[in-house]
């Protein structure tokens, strides 16, 4: 809702409240995971913007280019430069454990965005549930296809946790809920070319494919549309030849495609909320606040994911033709 997103600090931690009277302030270091996708670029833009709005002193952001070694190096450099709290988005959730322990031993709180480290101490994890993405996509396709048909799935890299979570959840949901649907899971390593090749091949082999789940609109959207166009399969949902497509990310191009009737839905990964709550929690950490599991004031829930580690599971709205013009969606705020 409108009000919640405009709240300026995560005040609503149920039963929470200031405990340690540590003085607020101090520099916040932030590492961006990559700068080569629309989603992350939006996030990268939101962070400094929101930091200014929230009055947080942000150090110059570093970029780890999807490489955990760089992330570790950047983190260490930020600590040397006096960071008092760190925001990061480790794309490799295992390999960050030691670094988190080291930061914990230096009493530097860490907010991770998008991924939940497998191990290690974090102050707060800000993410949407990637398993939920897979499930939402499965349910959407299952319902549209009425439990029958052939679906092709562009998997992300199996070595990335997000790709794995989405793939597993999608597969499990399909298996238990829609046994009548055949799923072709295509390994793509997040590469558009691989997706396009797989789609072409599969459409030749099975011309009756009627659903597509792409795990990242940023890389798969354009190639998919291009292949379908060349096969004359870009037809409105009313046409029996229509292939139902659900995407994942919520970039502006996906919205446009939904408006144009080329795809049917996307799960909007909230880049703005990621940035906003990451910065807010970092600020709260510096102010010494603590949080408890429970619903928040911004349509999300903080859950204890084990060992007292907290995760604020942000809503990831399903965007369809009905709500595609909602100005609150980050994809509609990008200029």
């Amino acid at each position, binding site marked *: 809702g409108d009000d919640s997103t405009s709240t300026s600090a995560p005040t609503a931690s149920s039963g929470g409240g200031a405990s340690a009277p540590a003085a607020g302030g101090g520099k916040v270091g932030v590492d961006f995971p*990559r*700068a*080569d*996708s*629309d989603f*992350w*670029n939006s996030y*990268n833009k939101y962070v400094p913007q929101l930091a200014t709005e929230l009055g947080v002193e942000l150090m110059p952001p570093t970029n780890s280019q999807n490489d955990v070694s760089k992330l570790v190096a950047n983190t260490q450099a930020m600590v040397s430069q006096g960071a008092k709290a760190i925001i990061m988005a480790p794309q490799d959730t295992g390999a960050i454990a030691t670094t988190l322990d080291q930061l914990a031993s230096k009493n530097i709180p860490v907010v991770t965005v998008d991924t939940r480290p497998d191990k290690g101490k974090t102050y707060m994890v800000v993410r949407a549930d990637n398993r939920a993405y897979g499930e939402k996509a499965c349910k959407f396709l299952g319902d549209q296809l009425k439990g029958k048909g052939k679906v092709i799935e562009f*998997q992300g890299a*199996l070595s990335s946790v997000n790709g794995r979570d989405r793939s597993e959840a999608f597969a499990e949901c399909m298996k238990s809920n829609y046994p009548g649907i055949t799923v*072709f*899971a*295509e*390994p793509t390593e997040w*590469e*558009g*070319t691989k997706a*396009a*090749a*797989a789609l*072409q*091949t*599969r459409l*030749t*082999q*099975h011309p009756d494919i009627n659903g597509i789940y792409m795990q990242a609109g*940023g*890389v798969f*959207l*354009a*190639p998919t*549309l*291009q292949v379908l*166009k*060349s096969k004359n399969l870009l037809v409105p949902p009313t046409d029996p030849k229509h292939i139902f497509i659900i995407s994942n990310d919520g970039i502006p*191009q996906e919205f446009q495609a939904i408006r144009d009737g080329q795809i049917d839905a996307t799960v909007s990964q909230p880049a703005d909320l990621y940035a906003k709550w990451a910065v807010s929690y970092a600020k709260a950490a510096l102010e010494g606040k603590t949080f408890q599991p429970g619903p928040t004031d911004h349509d999300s829930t903080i859950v204890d994911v084990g060992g007292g580690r907290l995760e604020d599971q942000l809503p990831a709205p399903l965007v369809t033709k009905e709500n595609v013009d909602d100005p609150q969606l980050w994809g509609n705020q990008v*200029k």
Partner: protein
Amino acid sequence: MTETTVAPPGSPGKSPARAGVPRLARFRDLALVPAIVVLIVVGALIDPAFLSGDNLTNVLQQQTELSLLVLAEAMILIAGKFDLSLESTVGLAPALGVGLVIPAAANGLGTEWPTALGIPLCLLIGALVGAFNGLLILRFKLSAFIVTLGMLIVLRGLQIGFTGGQNLFALPESFLYLGNARWIGLPASVWICIAAYIVGIVVLGYFRHGRAIYAIGGNVDAARAAGVRTDRVVWAVFIIGGLLAALAGLLMTGRLGSVAAAQGDGMIFTVFAAAVIGGVSLDGGKGTLFGALCGVLVLGLINNILTLAGVSAQWIQAIYGGIILIALMLARVTSGKAQD
């Protein structure tokens, strides 16, 4: 007919044994043809859809960009040089070409030059990258490997820098045309590729400047002594290489409908694999474009068959790599020659 190849009566053993070599060398070009036949049979057995015209067309179309890069790399390798930066030109050239013509609102650079300039700009940028590589390698006498490795990073960095890492979606129609059009039943990109290979094979086989590339790769001092302007030829090869990479980028942009920030990323390994499997030597002076093209087809067919066979995502990479290794060993055993 064979009289001339037979050794004079006085010389025992040596000459006849060696006389076979040139004929065999000519066959080496065809060394992969049996492999291609086997793959086609295997493909047909695995799935009847494999032999459908549609599927074969797909295989061809999916390999067009790779094959243009392999064409470029094969020429450069035959000339005795090296270019790793081709894969980043595949991304940078169309990105910059598009960026210069689209409005800033669509992530352009804000120059908004006439749209008609887009494609020429893209090709020009590819040529300029090749020219710059050539300059550093020939004038500054830097190692080609390391120059182009540096350029690989710089070019990708530039693309991310000025696009801000965004994929460019708002493409002018012209950019989409070549990657999508069909001419006489086949995708335009396939025709372009065929044309490029025919021109390449003819030039490298039947024209002085093409032969000069082999001479330079075989023995650059000897080529220079024979009056070949070696630096000029090598430079031209680098420029054409860059141009072909830009063309590949253009086709890929059209086929995929956007310029991805990572377009071309990681292709260079496949390019080398295809060229070397196709018989092009990393030492220069050896190999043919036809062989390289066969290398591309082999890799493309393997990919297609693995997809059709529905190999598990978990194991597909290991299987793919294993097949490549086995192909190499077979090539070694059948050709009977040490590789280089």
